[in-house]
Structures are given as structure tokens and as C-alpha cells.
């Protein structure tokens, strides 16, 4: 995308003399090319690398003066304190719902942009992504006369093509300068939500082109010498649905970075500039060194973990996220070859940098949570991907709901690690089954009861069920994979600001559990309905309605799948007013009993594009469960009946899955009968299970079932050959080839497909009944 002089300099030629420019001539050429660069888009040289930068000459100089590890540690602790303080400022003053629930991060960076230290709370994924925009700024704006970098400046960006977790996040990156030289950066980044995309809330499941993804802010200087630029601010406000949010949170981030800067200034005064610079640099390097050492502790070998995602967020498909992790000595190679191609008119694709940011999330929160959160953590890990797959999307692919792919980068590493680390005598985190990995949550937008335009999301995304540990059950609705200490928010407080009620909240759904010797943490249901608003709508943005999003570990089962359920054409508030007994609401009762006359009861997958919610119409979903650990028949029968008594599991599951026999009235376990039933169930397994080779011969097919819209490699023997479904003509056809040989992959509008099906049926019926009808086209 970036036109650089390189493209115009002949790389070879018949006439060698033509290449010999004098220094003066070369400068003229460079100057000319520099001034005539058409567009400074995302720079592949920056965007495709996650390694830390080599030491600069100045860093070298500073380090040469000597390093006192104790002093480095003191500096790091002081920075950590400042970052946590800045974090709390954002959390308590931020206008974005995400900020109030800890979906943000504050950080200190080296001059070249490597994250040295991140606030202890918040989203770790930012540690592996914010070096990109800083490198872009250093490369393109530092010496650009119309931009430049001065003390008191602050840069803003949100477009993940320039390095961001996803486009809902907005940054404030501020240089630390001494004598005109940049010696470090400080920054604050918040999940702001609303960003002017085709749907409110910043994570559109419906985007069909990058221009539907909303605000496309490349790094811009929004703050100049301490002053917020009103012209640019107005442009940003005008480009999104929530101008108040934009203003408030840019100011909050300015305040937070100012707070970090105060500490940085004091620290530099105290320890000296050189010691400060050296300690930032060695922290990044030390983390890298330690990661290499820890890789070396893992057994050499290869662990493969493939995931299958069942939705484009508009229609059900199956797209693969392949991952093979090889450890050899202190090298680790993560290979995503086999991952399905990008889909050029669907929102699920992720830029490579965003996918990597969630790999870093797994490394720093689930593998080695004791390490400083630094760019150094992912840096020594080699990552192989193919550009134009959905985990490494090209510039022209929409990435509105990129978490669909990037969260799979997290799950690939988090899940595989149980196998990688199991035999290792030295562990830094517990052996744990897969964490839930979908944003089962309502996004919303419209006009509030206070007359304001808003677009954002509920805090329930933070209620993901934890994976079972090897020695205890996973925790219910405990934390999102991206933030260990995120909050579920106060529903009553939110209801003051948004025109809908959560009629049911935090009620666990029976059997919504990853079964196992230890079971995964459970998820709860949510039921919302709008009230007192001239215009309102809800969205959901996840997959996992047909294929379980997470499996279990070592024989444990995964989570179930999750429907979206709706009752349209009713007003629940009127119903409850007339008959308060109807307030006995649950997804199960409402959908199965259909108690409200005239209601239109529907289910769908969890990709709901902005849907106009009339007053009192019900929208229902459930948060997801973590994976189970170990064989279900080894689960303590007492734990099974406890879950049964609390209606966490059904009798069917207690009997058929867990093999427990109990006294119906008292929930007392029949020990002997349970032992016998379980022995019988083991025997049944042995008699129904087929020897592997025989099983393979029966089960394995050359290709996916014909009607399955499948994307990615089939098996793992030939990961470079990708399968895809291509609508070159009206009927879809399966295509195969290397990623560069596949046609552009798009999916037709499902309504167009439905209409053509219905038209065909009309013709069929006309023919059958001999009706003569003229169809003009």
C-alpha cells in the first residue's frame, strides 16, 4: 500500500552506469520521491514484525554506563505504580462502558516503541500491538515538516491495520522528549466502542467492506504541544455516533498520560536520563531472554490444535483456524498454515498484528503471567502465517469483528499449552482446559431516554466461563480471556444511561457446562428489552451456534453451542403489568411454552445485525462455558449431585454423561450402583469404540460433506492446500489450491439466495398447478 522509493529504484539493469548516482543526486532523488509519495498506508515492514527493535546507538551508550538490576527493578515498580494510577483514572473517569470495566491499558514504551511495561490490570493484548503505530509515527511523522514530534504532542489512532487490538480501541501516544530527542513514549488505550461503523458499538458483524468498519484513523497528531486540536477533534466526533464519548475519553487519556508523564519526569530527574533509558531497554530484553529460557524448559516436540468456527456472522459456514506449535531447544515456531482464506465481504477477518496480540495475551496471562507485560514476550516466538487468510487479512478485507479470528489465536496457544507444559517439572501457571472464547453479549445503539445518540455494548462480555483446572472446577462467569480482572458492571447504573432493562441476568443455564472430571465454569443467560426510547436496536456478534467454540482437555468435553432467541411483536412490560406472575422469565420457559399470545418466537445463530427493537420485545442469549478437564466418569459423584440439586445439570446429564445413580428425593448418591453403572459405561465404550485404523477407514472422507460451506485445509497432511466455497456462478462450488491460487472468496447475500430459492419454488408450483404466469426480469 505504501509507495516508496524502493519501487522505483532499478534493482538490476543492463547499464550499470545508470545506477551510479552521486550522493548529491541520490539526495535529490530521495527528496523528490519523499515529496511525491502518494499515500503512507500501513507499512508491511512495520506491520509484519513483532520482534523487538535492535538497540539504538543511544540505548547502547546508556547501557554501557552500567546496569544495576536493583535500580532497574525500582524504576519498574515506580512505573508500575504510575501506570496503575493512570489506569484507575481511565477506569473511573472514562465515558466508555469498556473503560469502566477495565477494558483498557496504560503503558510505557522505549523510544522505538517496544512496550516496556503495562498497567497490572487491563488488557494485556495491547502489549503486542502498540509498537506498530509508534514505529509508523517515528518513520513517517518525526521528520515530516508538516507533522513533526514535539514535547506535549499526542497521537491518536484506532485502525487495526496500523496496529490495534481492534477498531473499537483508541489510543493516546505521547513522546517523552529531552533536548529535542525522543527517549521514550507513554500511552493510554481504551476500548471506546462506538466508532462510526455500519452498525453502532464499533464491532459490526455486518460489515462487508473495510469502509463499513468505521473510523479509519491512521496515527494523527490530535494533541499539539499540550493542546487538543479542535479541528481534528470535530472531525472525529463527526465521524462517529457519540460525540460526547469521543471528547470525554480523549481528555481522559490526555489526563492519564499526563499522570504517567509526571512520574517519568520525576524518575528521570532522580536517576538520570541514561539510567532511565537503559532500564526501559533492558526490561524488554530481559523478558525476551527469559521467554527463550522458558521455551527451553518445555519438551521438544509438536502440538497441533485446530479450531473450526461455524459462522461468518451472517451465515453458517465452517472455517478452520489451524495451529501447529513446535518447540526445539529455545526456539518456538507457531505455524498457522492451513487456516482458511479471508472472506472479502464478511466481518470476521483479522489483521495479523491483531491475531498476534491475542497470542501475546495467552503467553502473558495463561503461560507465564509473572513476566513483565512487554513486547519482549512474543518477540522470540516465530510465527508463520499466510497473508490473505482470515487470521492474516489483507488491506481490502473487512475486519469489523476481527475478534472472531484473533480470539482463536488466543485459544490456539492457551489450549495447546496444557499439552506443551504438562510434563514440564517447572510450571508458572496451572494446567487448565480451554477458556471460553466468544463475546456472547448484546451490543446496542440508538437514542437514550436522555435524548443522546449512543452505541456500545453490555459488560456481560466479561462473564466468560473459565476452563476447568486439572484439580478443580472452572469458575462461572469469571473473566474474559483478554482481561483477568474485568468487571461485569452494575446493571442498575447502566439502566440510568441506556433505555433497556436486563429482565433476566446472571441466571445460569442448565447443562451450559463443559463436562469433565472437573467441569468448566458456567455461563448465564441474559434477556433484554428496550423501554422508553424513540429508536433502539440490539446486535450480537459471535459464532458457536452449531459447532462448540471450545473443546475440553484430556477427555473432558467442550462447551455447548449458543442460540439467539427472540420474541418479537410483544410488549413484555405490558404483559408483566397486567399479570406480574409472567415475570417468571427464562429462555427455556419463554421459548418452550410460548406463553405470550401473538408473539413471534424465533431462534438464530449469534450473528445478529442491528435489529430494531420495539418496546418490550425480548432478546435472549447465554454467556458461554469453559471446557471440562478429564474423563467424566472420574468426576466425584458428590459434585455431580450437587450440580444436579442446584439445577446446574439435568438428570439426563447426571445419568448418561456422568454415570451417577442417586436417590431422587434426597440427592444421596448410591455409591455401589454408581460404581457399577460407571464400570458398565467403560465396558460400553470398549465395545462400541473401534480400533483407530478401522475407525479412520470408515470416518475419514476425502473432502468435507458436499453441502458444508468449508474453508481451510482438510486434515493436516497437506496444510498448504486450502479448500473454499466459491460462488463463481449461482451454485456454490468447492475450490482447492494454495492461498495465492484461490479465487477471491466472497459470500452472496443470504436474502438473494433465499429469494432465488423461493422463486424456484414458485415456478415449480406454477408448473404443477398449470398456472400461466409471465415473469419479466
Amino acid at each position, binding site marked *: 500500500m505504501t509507495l516508496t522509493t524502493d519501487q522505483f529504484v532499478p534493482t538490476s539493469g543492463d547499464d550499470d552506469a545508470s545506477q551510479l548516482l552521486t550522493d548529491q543526486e541520490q539526495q535529490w532523488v530521495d527528496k523528490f520521491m519523499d515529496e511525491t509519495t502518494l499515500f503512507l498506508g500501513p507499512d508491511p515492514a512495520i506491520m509484519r514484525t513483532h520482534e523487538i527493535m535492535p538497540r539504538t546507538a543511544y540505548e547502547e551508550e546508556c547501557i554501557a554506563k552500567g546496569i544495576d538490576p536493583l535500580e532497574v527493578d525500582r524504576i519498574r515498580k515506580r512505573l508500575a505504580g504510575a501506570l496503575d494510577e493512570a489506569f484507575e483514572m481511565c477506569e473511573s473517569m472514562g465515558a466508555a462502558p469498556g473503560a469502566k470495566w477495565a477494558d483498557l491499558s496504560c503503558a510505557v514504551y522505549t523510544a522505538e516503541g517496544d512496550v516496556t511495561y503495562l498497567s497490572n490490570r487491563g488488557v494485556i493484548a495491547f502489549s503486542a500491538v502498540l509498537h506498530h503505530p509508534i514505529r509508523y509515527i517515528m518513520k513517517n511523522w518525526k521528520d515530516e515538516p508538516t507533522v513533526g514530534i514535539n514535547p506535549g504532542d499526542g497521537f491518536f489512532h484506532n485502525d487495526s491495520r496500523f496496529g490495534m487490538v481492534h477498531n473499537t480501541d483508541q489510543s493516546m501516544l505521547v513522546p517523552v522528549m529531552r533536548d529535542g530527542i525522543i527517549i521514550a513514549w507513554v500511552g493510554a488505550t481504551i476500548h471506546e466502542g462506538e466508532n462510526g461503523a455500519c452498525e453502532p458499538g464499533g464491532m459490526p458483524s455486518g460489515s462487508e467492506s473495510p469502509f463499513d468498519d468505521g473510523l479509519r484513523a491512521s496515527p494523527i497528531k490530535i494533541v499539539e504541544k499540550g493542546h487538543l486540536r479542535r479541528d481534528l477533534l470535530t472531525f472525529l466526533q463527526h465521524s462517529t455516533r457519540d460525540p460526547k464519548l469521543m471528547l470525554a475519553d480523549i481528555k481522559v487519556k490526555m489526563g492519564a498520560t499526563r499522570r504517567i508523564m509526571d512520574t517519568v519526569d520525576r524518575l528521570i530527574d532522580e536517576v538520570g536520563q541514561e539510567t532511565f533509558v537503559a532500564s526501559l531497554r533492558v526490561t524488554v530484553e530481559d523478558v525476551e531472554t527469559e521467554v527463550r529460557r522458558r521455551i527451553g524448559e518445555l519438551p521438544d*516436540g509438536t502440538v497441533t490444535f485446530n479450531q473450526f468456527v461455524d459462522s461468518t456472522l451472517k451465515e453458517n459456514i465452517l472455517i478452520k483456524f489451524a495451529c501447529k506449535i513446535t518447540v526445539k531447544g529455545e526456539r518456538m515456531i507457531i505455524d498457522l498454515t492451513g487456516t482458511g482464506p479471508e472472506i472479502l465481504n464478511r466481518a470476521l477477518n483479522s489483521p495479523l498484528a491483531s491475531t498476534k496480540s491475542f497470542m501475546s495475551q495467552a503467553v502473558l496471562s495463561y503461560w507465564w503471567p509473572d513476566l513483565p507485560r512487554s513486547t519482549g514476550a512474543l518477540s522470540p516466538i516465530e510465527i508463520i502465517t499466510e497473508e490473505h487468510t482470515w487470521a492474516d487479512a489483507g488491506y481490502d478485507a473487512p475486519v469489523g469483528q476481527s475478534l472472531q479470528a484473533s480470539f482463536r489465536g488466543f485459544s490456539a496457544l492457551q489450549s495447546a499449552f496444557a499439552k506443551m507444559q504438562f510434563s514440564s517439572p517447572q510450571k508458572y*501457571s496451572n494446567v487448565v482446559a480451554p477458556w471460553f472464547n466468544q463475546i456472547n453479549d448484546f451490543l446496542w445503539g440508538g437514542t437514550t431516554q436522555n435524548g443522546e445518540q449512543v452505541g456500545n455494548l453490555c459488560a456481560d462480555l466479561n462473564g466468560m466461563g473459565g476452563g476447568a483446572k486439572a484439580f478443580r472446577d472452572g469458575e462461572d462467569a469469571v473473566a474474559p480471556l483478554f482481561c483477568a480482572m474485568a468487571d461485569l458492571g452494575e446493571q442498575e447504573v447502566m439502566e440510568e444511561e441506556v433505555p433497556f432493562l436486563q429482565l433476566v441476568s446472571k441466571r445460569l443455564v442448565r447443562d451450559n457446562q463443559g463436562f469433565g472430571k472437573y467441569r468448566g465454569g458456567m455461563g448465564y443467560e441474559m434477556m433484554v428489552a428496550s423501554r422508553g426510547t424513540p429508536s433502539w436496536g440490539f446486535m450480537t456478534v459471535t459464532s458457536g451456534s452449531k459447532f462448540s467454540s471450545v473443546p475440553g482437555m484430556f477427555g473432558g468435553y467442550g462447551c455447548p453451542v449458543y442460540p439467539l432467541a427472540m420474541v418479537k411483536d410483544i410488549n413484555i412490560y405490558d404483559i408483566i403489568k397486567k399479570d406480574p406472575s409472567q415475570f417468571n422469565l427464562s429462555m427455556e420457559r419463554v421459548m418452550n411454552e410460548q406463553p405470550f399470545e401473538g408473539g413471534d418466537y424465533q431462534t438464530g445463530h449469534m450473528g445478529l445485525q442491528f435489529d430494531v427493537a420495539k418496546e418490550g420485545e425480548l432478546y435472549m442469549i447465554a454467556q458461554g462455558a469453559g471446557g471440562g478437564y478429564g474423563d467424566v466418569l472420574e468426576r466425584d459423584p458428590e459434585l455431580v449431585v450437587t450440580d444436579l440439586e442446584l439445577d446446574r445439570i439435568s438428570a439426563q446429564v447426571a445419568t448418561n454423561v456422568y454415570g451417577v445413580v442417586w436417590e431422587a428425593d434426597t440427592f444421596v448418591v448410591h455409591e455401589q450402583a454408581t460404581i457399577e453403572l460407571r464400570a458398565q459405561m467403560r465396558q460400553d465404550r470398549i465395545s462400541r469404540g473401534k480400533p483407530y485404523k478401522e475407525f479412520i477407514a470408515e470416518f475419514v*472422507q476425502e473432502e468435507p460433506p458436499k453441502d458444508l460451506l468449508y474453508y481451510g485445509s482438510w486434515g493436516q497432511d497437506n496444510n498448504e492446500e486450502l479448500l473454499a466455497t466459491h460462488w463463481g456462478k449461482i451454485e456454490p462450488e468447492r475450490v482447492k489450491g494454495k492461498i495465492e491460487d484461490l479465487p477471491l472468496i466472497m459470500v452472496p447475500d443470504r436474502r438473494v439466495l433465499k429469494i432465488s430459492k423461493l422463486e424456484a419454488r414458485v415456478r415449480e408450483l406454477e408448473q404443477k398447478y398449470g398456472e400461466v404466469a409471465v415473469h419479466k426480469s
Partner: protein
Amino acid sequence: MRVPMTEYLLIDLDTERWICRVCAHDFGDARGNYKEGTLVYDRDPQEIHPPVIDPEKYEFTFSPDPAFCRILEFYCPTCGTQIEAEYLPPGHPPTVDMLWDIDSLREKWDAHGGNPEEVVNYGPGENAEADLSARFDSVTPHAHSRQNEGH
């Protein structure tokens, strides 16, 4: 020397075999894919994850769609322990999920000097301390002979 590699699988470094931690069943060459020594069952996912809302009325019910998703259950042929449950599209080859470098594993443990069955645990924290030694040693002293039976 036996190394616990998963909850239910050990690698015996002396014989270079995968063995069941529960019953000592021999799953095959430790340099290869342990799944080749298992019994496998193609489970309809709806039998495990029951619908919460009525499948007669609705397409999406909390229960996976068997046309998209199967659960391959891998059993130990001797004791019937479910050592792995893999969620796969119908007809997709099972994943070769672990391949280990046995020479390197031996080197690492030789250098460590400890007994893996005593040293390996579930990670930091008191409650993560675990006895990951072979269960068949404590339960049935003669269970080793089982690996020569059948299959």
C-alpha cells in the same frame, strides 16, 4: 523412567512406549501418535450436549448440529478411560495432536535427575500438587502384564 505427558498418558523412556497411566495399556511407539493405539467412537454431539430449547420448534437449541460437529471419543482399550474428546467436522481426519522428541525428553530428564512421576505436578499453588505417578502401580501390582493382552 516414566514421564506423565497428559492426565492419562505416560511415556516410558526405557521402552519408548506410550502407556495408560490408569491401567498400563500400551498405546504404541512413543515417537508416534498415541491415538493409533486407542479405540475411537464417533459421538453425536446432541447426546452429550442436550437441547435446552425445543428442537421440534427451533433450529438453534444449545445442542450442536451433527451435520457440522462430531465428537470423537478416544478410549483406552483396556480400562475404557476417555483420554481425549475431539470436536471435528464430520469426516475430518483426527488431529495428530502431540509428537514428542524422545531423545530430547530423555536428555532433559537425565539432566534434571528427578523422577518425573514424583516431580511433575499441575503448576504453582498448594492445591496444584498432585500425584501423577502411574495409578496401576498402587492399585494392581501385576497390571503391567495387561499390556500384552488383546488389541
